């Protein structure tokens, strides 16, 4: 019988009612009295030198308040980067300046040149057309390998080259890996592209800056996954506003997927301009603006080699990746191809020797940063594709080859050769579950049915593992992070027993307002309706790091548990006093404190009231009131893992691929709300399938962004996708957080692209139909058809 409340139950989401009735409060719904609007004049060339900007005519146009250019920001800090990578030679990465508005040069299409503040958006836009920019167009650097060639045009004149860093991991393993590959019985090599994507949350980014002249306080309303991070970065590193004079509010946020982690120039601009103009300033991105200013994702070009011995045991993996940084370093960009990617190259396997080389490259394109999965999809894709290719070359079953090389349940905790220690897992269990839910034994019959109607059917299977619950602060500090990655929670119990959890986590679709109360309700034994969740406002939440990297329940939830434990400890002391018993004998169950072995009890509400009306209260021992804060810093990452399968039909006449079946068997450890977990997997799957079949952020050789609207960037739609079969019943709880949870937000996007590509290759290659062993994503009809010819 499923539970009807608490951990493991699936109550309906409480946030849904406001979203379903138009009562949500998204940033663009916020209007501050007297606000002006800003329109950014953006570069339409990929690379150019600004020889002059004439704003005279524009400034005289109706409604224009003020026009800003790079010159207005010369005394202001640039956009900061939050992670410093050290390269394989011990040198720190090259880190270019990133001004709020272009200074001297533009470096990608969309780079902001000027900002027009006016009474209305239309007036600002009209005035932008009257600005004269004397732009000297320069050759654009788009291809990463060309960018590294001697004599290439440099994106940043003051850097030595377009190489941000040349990272080796684990550098000490390099020679041993080279030797293992030389000694191997078989080496499978695959060169592949992990295509550039745009996260595309349906809510475009918005920023509203407000300044209070009376108190000298600034407020920024913004579409962010982590308002405290924005406050710290913008206040301390860009604008020089002390944190106690700066409030950042991220209200209802319409999806993030990573791209709303980062601190963006428009946020700093609106905050700065509100003070400079003494008026609130609002910016709302158009979708085309989002395409050319939101940080992009992925964009890796990789060569991977997998070495096997004569018994098909994996003996070594060697990779060489070029990772596109774009024109500037976005907030966490350097960490994605390195520590979030190289550390996952062991996958679910016992491969003893691994070497990962990553060259990060500047190009005249929009900056690239974390997008759902961030480094882990790139690792999973190359590893699971090369294993599939190896199985095909060796003529062995791809599932059997994986099973043979799995880390075994009795090997946990398992230290990989790429510096992480998996705490728990059971990879055969998830593969067994996958075989069951996907009905893999029925595939041959389904293939025959497809062939009977002239379609080629393929089956793709793969595994994945990810490192979530980001992250132990002392570890990431050693790896170059310029931030801590703990999470915080304050639990404030009111006098009548209801309580508020103020969390540093941020919900932008994940349903924290529903799941977090489930945990508190379970711990105290009260109804979930007595628990309110507050998030997204630096003024009323403790300093927290926000939501990304599947960290909310694993890190933010753990902080909440720790704070609630402090509350429970204190209420037990109060209950012991009221019941004239020893604290050690007090038990809390179903919202009642009882003295063990007796019928003496006092309820939760009475104890809470006593804390605020302390007439009969141990004031000599404890303070009145019930409010506790905890900061939780994880001891390790968490390691969700699973096995996915995809069945496709390929139309041999057109190359069109359709997803016929998709199954996902995940191990997320303990699950708080299965309905929400499954929804997270569904969404991740759609994004991964979108990457594999549809989505591609394309530039031409001059740096023009060809896919800057939904007319050109193929977002997955309802009729591109099937019903999915998902399962999370294989659960090996995390051993180092109090809830035993691992996190589920990114799994679908990490695990699904290789399943799709493996399935298409299976359709094309099996039975000797073609010799195609690889096609780069997206597997659009033209690419598949061309490969078949």
């Amino acid at each position, binding site marked *: 019988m499923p539970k009807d409340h608490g951990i493991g139950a699936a109550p309906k*989401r409480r946030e*849904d009612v406001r979203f*379903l009735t138009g009562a949500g409060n998204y940033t663009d719904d916020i209007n501050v009295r007297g606000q002006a609007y800003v329109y950014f004049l953006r570069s339409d060339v990929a690379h150019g030198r600004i020889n002059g900007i004439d704003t005279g005519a524009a400034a005289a146009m109706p409604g224009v308040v003020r026009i800003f250019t790079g010159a207005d920001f010369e005394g202001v800090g640039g956009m900061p980067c939050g992670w410093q990578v050290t390269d394989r030679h011990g040198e720190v990465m090259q880190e270019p300046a990133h001004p709020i508005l272009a200074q001297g040069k533009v470096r990608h299409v969309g780079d902001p040149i000027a900002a027009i503040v006016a009474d209305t958006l239309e007036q600002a836009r009209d005035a932008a057309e009257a600005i004269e920019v004397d732009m000297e167009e320069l050759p654009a650097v788009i291809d990463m390998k060309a960018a590294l060639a001697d004599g290439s045009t440099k994106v940043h004149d003051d850097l030595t080259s377009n190489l941000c860093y040349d990272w080796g991991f684990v550098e000490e393993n390099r020679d041993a890996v080279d030797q293992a590959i030389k000694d191997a019985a078989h080496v499978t090599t695959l060169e592949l592209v992990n295509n550039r994507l745009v996260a595309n949350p349906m809510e475009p980014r918005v920023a509203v800056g407000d300044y209070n002249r009376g108190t000298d306080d600034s407020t920024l309303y913004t579409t962010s996954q982590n308002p405290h991070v924005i406050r710290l970065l913008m206040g301390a590193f860009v604008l020089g506003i002390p944190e106690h004079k700066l409030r950042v509010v991220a209200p209802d946020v319409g999806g993030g997927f990573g791209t709303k982690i980062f601190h963006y120039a428009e946020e700093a601009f609106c905050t700065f301009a509100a003070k400079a103009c003494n008026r609130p300033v609002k910016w709302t991105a158009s*979708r085309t603006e989002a395409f050319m200013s939101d940080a992009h994702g992925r964009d890796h070009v990789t060569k991977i080699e997998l070495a096997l011995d004569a018994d098909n045991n994996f003996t070594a993996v060697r990779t060489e990746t070029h990772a596109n940084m774009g024109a500037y370093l976005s907030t966490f960009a350097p960490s994605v191809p390195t520590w979030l990617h190289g550390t996952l190259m062991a996958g679910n396997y016992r491969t003893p020797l691994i070497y990962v080389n990553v060259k990060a490259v500047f190009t005249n394109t929009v900056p690239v940063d974390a997008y759902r999965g961030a480094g882990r999809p790139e690792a999973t894709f190359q590893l699971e594709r090369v294993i599939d290719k190896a199985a095909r070359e060796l003529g062995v079953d791809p599932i059997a080859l994986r099973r043979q090389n799995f880390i075994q349940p009795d090997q946990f905790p398992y230290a990989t050769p790429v510096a992480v220690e998996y705490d728990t897992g059971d990879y055969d269990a998830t593969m067994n579950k996958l075989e069951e839910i996907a009905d893999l034994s029925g595939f041959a019959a389904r293939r025959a049915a497809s062939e009977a109607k002239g379609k080629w059917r393929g089956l793709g299977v793969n595994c994945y593992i990810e490192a979530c619950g980001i992250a132990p602060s002392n570890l990431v500090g050693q790896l170059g992070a310029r931030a801590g990655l703990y999470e915080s929670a304050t639990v404030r119990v009111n006098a009548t027993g209801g309580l508020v959890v103020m969390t540093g986590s941020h919900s*932008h679709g994940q349903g924290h307002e529903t799941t977090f109360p489930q945990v508190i309700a379970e711990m105290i034994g009260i109804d979930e309706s007595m628990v309110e969740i507050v998030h997204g406002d630096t003024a009323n939440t403790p300093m927290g790091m926000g939501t990304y990297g599947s960290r909310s329940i694993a890190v933010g939830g753990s902080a909440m548990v720790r704070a609630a434990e402090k509350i429970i400890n204190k209420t037990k002391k109060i209950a012991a006093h009221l019941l004239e018993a020893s604290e050690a004998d007090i038990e809390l169950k179903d919202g009642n404190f009882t003295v063990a072995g007796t019928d003496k009890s006092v309820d939760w509400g009475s104890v809470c009231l006593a804390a605020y009306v302390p007439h009969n209260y141990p004031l000599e021992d404890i303070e009145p009131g019930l409010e506790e804060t905890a900061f939780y810093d994880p001891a390790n990452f968490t390691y969700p893992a699973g096995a996915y399968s995809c069945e496709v039909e390929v139309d041999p006449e057109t190359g069109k691929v359709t997803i016929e079946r998709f199954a996902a068997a995940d191990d997320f450890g303990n699950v708080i709300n299965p309905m929400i977990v499954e929804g997270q997997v569904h969404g991740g*799957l759609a994004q991964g399938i979108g990457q594999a079949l549809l989505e591609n952020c394309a530039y031409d050789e001059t740096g023009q962004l060809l896919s800057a*609207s939904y007319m050109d960037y193929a977002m997955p739609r309802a009729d591109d996708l099937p019903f999915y079969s998902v399962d999370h019943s294989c659960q090996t709880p995390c051993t180092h957080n109090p809830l035993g949870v691992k996190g589920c937000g990114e799994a679908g996007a990490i695990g699904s692209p290789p399943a799709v590509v493996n399935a298409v290759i299976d359709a094309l290659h099996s039975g000797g139909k073609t010799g195609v062993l690889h096609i780069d994503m997206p597997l659009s009809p033209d690419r598949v058809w061309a490969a078949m010819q």
Partner: protein
Amino acid sequence: MPNVSMTVNGKAASGEVEGRTLLVGFLRDQLGLTGTHVGCDTSQCGACVVHVDGKAVKACTMLAAEADGADVKTIEGMAAPDGTLSTIQQAFQDHHGLQCGFCTPGMVMSAAALLAENASPSEQEIREYLEGNICRCTGYHNIVKAIMAAAGHDVSAIAAE
């Protein structure tokens, strides 16, 4: 500037608009009905779908002046006056058909229009009808399931929640 008058969610509404003002701008900025969202600028995403004289319309594709005299219904007008959700709204909550909520108003308005045209659409008909509504969170699984449930289909056999 022209003056427009229309009925919105059963109430008379009017205001002065620029000739270029879109219906969605009139609803959001002048009437304060911020439930209708703008997710793109090419009439692709469907976050702004409202009903105009009973037909689903992308409010970013219609000038406010074109809606002069029309009967407009937005997401704010879908629930009963006492707050009881409509069948389609309730189905979205029951089947977890929304996550961030940004596409949701347009999805609900499109789904309601579909069910008005076709009381018992098949899965494939639902998926095809939603061609003009993009959701980035749900992978559509639970949206399609919710609409099927609202249409009275038995969805218990559809995999997962």
